[in-house]
């Protein structure tokens, strides 16, 4: 057997800290989940002190940015609404059209309408309820763009409820929604200390004796730089810098909160992408130093900007758009980026209209909304899951396909076509609570039968 690749015995496992171990950190050790969202905000504010916390309302100015100057009527507003929100109807498109291009884009980019965060007890063991809450919110919110954008960020900063527990991922999604239009820095700072992420990528097991590289690798490969812009040594050094970032379970054992364990932190200096990282007296700041290094690199904005463009613009956005988008994102907020994109002349070209494939959730929400449904009935969860997108369990750490043909396997196309029958049938999904109108869901959509056309799959 010795000609087979042999496997080394893995190193001994990390000694787990005794429960009485004192942990030190800037975050309260006892934090009821209600206020846990406050603790991360306070920490964020503290760490961002110096005025870098971006105000959300600032838009990119400057005369050099090209702005679409063609007609902006129902036709164009329909495209904008479908792309931004993945739901809508003709009267909403008309309302946008009356606001003019800038007014319409600004109204879509309004500060996200945040749902009340429910306790773990509210959901209990009814895990389908988490998905229902999200779909129902998407159907009723005044800021549907925030929902499509939150789905993007959740597919970017992936966690799977099957590993993190549902409430931790629910809480993460809520925070992503709140920061969805903010700076990429705000999002990255939040996610680095997010309990679901710390559990999902095993940082909670990472100690100075046995640093776990899972988070360090994905932080660069999937969350900021993309493949090919760092070395294995950088991964090891980042893993060391984040040792001690872990979670503690709440007294009721229902969810986790962030906690820094100084005794698990590797105190020696690190070198990350050519920068020295060392904080002898405030070791937790080493993690933020690493984030700042990544946030200082243009590659991060090229990578994130391209993903956003593939999700909101075109499967092949082109170098020029990616370069310009990176500039906008680096100098501003996600809102600035989307404002730039939604007012860009190319956004309204024929080549861009209907160039993206709806993900199953977008397909379901868009169709439910068009069919006048504002609340999903219980059994619909399973029909949505049959479309191959369980929003609480992305397929893996690299997330879902980005608005691409990957969604449309034979089986999934069959299920999508069957889904039309289910949604438009009163007896299986309840009576419509709002006017029925398919024109935003699909160009040329007039009735259920018309939704069989390929265009119904597109955004």
């Amino acid at each position, binding site marked *: *057997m010795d000609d087979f690749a042999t496997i080394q015995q893995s190193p001994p496992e990390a000694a787990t800290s005794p429960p009485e171990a004192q942990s030190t950190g800037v975050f309260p050790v006892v934090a009821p989940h209600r206020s846990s969202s406050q603790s991360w905000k306070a920490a964020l504010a503290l760490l961002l002190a110096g005025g870098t916390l971006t105000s959300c309302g600032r838009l990119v100015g400057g005369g050099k940015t090209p702005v679409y100057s063609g007609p902006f009527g129902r036709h164009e507003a329909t495209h904008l609404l479908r792309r931004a929100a993945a739901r809508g109807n003709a009267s909403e498109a008309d309302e946008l059209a009356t606001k003019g291009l800038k007014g319409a884009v600004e109204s879509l980019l309004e500060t996200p309408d945040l749902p009340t965060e429910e306790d773990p007890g509210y959901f209990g063991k009814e895990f389908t309820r988490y998905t229902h809450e999200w779909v129902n919110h998407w159907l009723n919110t005044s800021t549907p763009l925030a929902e499509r954008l939150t789905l993007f960020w959740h597919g970017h900063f992936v966690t799977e409820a099957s590993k993190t527990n549902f409430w931790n991922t629910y809480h993460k999604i809520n925070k992503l929604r709140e920061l969805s239009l903010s700076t990429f820095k705000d999002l990255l700072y939040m996610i680095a200390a997010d309990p679901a992420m710390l559990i999902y990528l095993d940082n909670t097991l990472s100690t100075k004796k046995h640093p776990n590289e899972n988070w360090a690798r994905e932080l660069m490969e999937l969350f900021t730089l993309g493949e090919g812009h760092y070395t294995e040594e950088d991964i090891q050094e980042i893993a060391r810098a984040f040792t001690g970032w872990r979670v503690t379970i709440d007294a009721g054992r229902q969810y986790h909160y962030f906690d820094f364990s100084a005794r698990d932190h590797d105190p020696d200096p690190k070198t990350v992408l050519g920068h020295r990282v060392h904080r002898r007296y405030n070791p937790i700041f080493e993690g933020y130093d690493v984030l700042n290094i990544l946030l200082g690199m243009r590659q991060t904005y090229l990578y994130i900007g391209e993903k956003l463009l593939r999700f909101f613009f075109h*499967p092949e956005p082109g170098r020029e758009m990616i370069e310009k988008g990176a500039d906008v994102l680096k100098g501003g907020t996600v809102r600035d980026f989307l404002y730039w994109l939604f007012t860009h002349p190319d956004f309204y070209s024929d080549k861009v209209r209907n160039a993206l494939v709806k993900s199953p959730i977008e397909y379901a929400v868009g169709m439910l909304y068009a069919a006048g449904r504002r609340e999903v009935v219980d059994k619909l969860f399973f029909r949505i899951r049959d479309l191959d997108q369980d929003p609480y369990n992305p397929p*893996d750490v690299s997330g879902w396909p980005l608005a691409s043909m990957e969604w449309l396997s034979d*089986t999934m196309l069959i299920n999508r076509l*069957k889904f039309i*029958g289910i949604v438009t049938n009163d007896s299986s999904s309840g009576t419509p609570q709002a006017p029925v109108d398919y024109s935003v869901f699909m160009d040329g959509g007039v009735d259920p039968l018309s939704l069989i056309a390929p265009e119904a799959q597109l955004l």
Partner: protein
Amino acid sequence: MNRRSFIKRSLFTLAAAGAAPSLFGRTALAAGGNGKILVVYHLFGGNDVLNTLITTDADKRRLYESYRPDIFIPAADTIDLKATGMSLGMHPSLKPLVDDLWNNGQLALVSQVGYPNHNRSHFLSTAIWNTGDPNRPSKSGWLGRFIDEQNDPYCATNLGNTLPRALRGVHATGLSIGSVARYGFGHGAWEKKLPEEVRRQIARQRSGTAEEVRRAMDHMLRSVKEVRGAMAKQYAPSTTFPLNRYGAQFADIARLIKYDFPSQVYYAAGGGYDTHGKQGGKTGRHADLLSQLAGALAAFRKEMIAQGKWNDVLVMIFSEFGRRVKQNASAGTDHGKGGLLFFAGGAVKGGIYGEEPELDESSFDHGDLPVKIDFRNAYAAAAGFIGANPADLVGSGFNPLPVI
């Protein structure tokens, strides 16, 4: 009727935007393939190795029984495999496998198989087994790379509703069929309208993404027709399969093989192996699962022999990891490391590959059987069987286990 040429004409890749649709893509069997068929089965949850392949050595048995006082398989119930130089037996539920496969030299057991730097999560372990890449599970599956090479979305088929990552390529993905009998549009008022309505609405060519969707819908119509063809009476297996999940899946695979469906790879999974509590011993939860599996596999062998295909079929059964050596407080076992992989087929060289598990504590890897054979050596053997270059599917440096 030559189905292969039918498929050959109708093919196009479900490619990402930009790739030219290949209308004359090769099919596995017609061009790239060698006529061999690989069936992969995933026992999801982590099959308990020590109660599947059981020691028959007296000294080791004392340790085994002390580690597992509530769930050990009694010596009298263990079926001795009489493997040369080894003291190993099988769970009594696996009697059909011993009688039909092992005793005919058609069952290879790969002991303590797994991947390096073990992680005990089902999620990560499954991703690693699916992609064949322990470093960073990539987007495409190990068999997805085969599908990409064949440039043929029909060359691999999953028997299940959701396509496993193993069958996702970069340019094409395998087919996913929940059940042959139910694949298609269904018989409700709405469903009945679909085939004709789809045909009507996709008649007109489009451009851009809409055209890609139109082609995908055309492909869907053809795949429904193709799979429905297998429902004809003459393709029903002559063997009776057990009435359980495994039986249904293996019966569907046998049916598609009989129909000459152009897949070279069939993939299926069944769960329930995550036996953290009350897993049972010679009877109980785990025993029931093994019994169902063994019954289905024995029926599949019989059917393949009847079809004259048994020498051309390789069945590979794996689980994402094994379980801990010592039972837990709930009369179950927690996630462990080294697993057991089965190869079965007419061409298989039966026997035990790897070592007989050591049961003294000093040989454990943190309470688990250590991993001693890299799973990619097993994959390499499976890849070679279907005529693929193992290095293309699992990377270089992994010699195929000599099970064929």
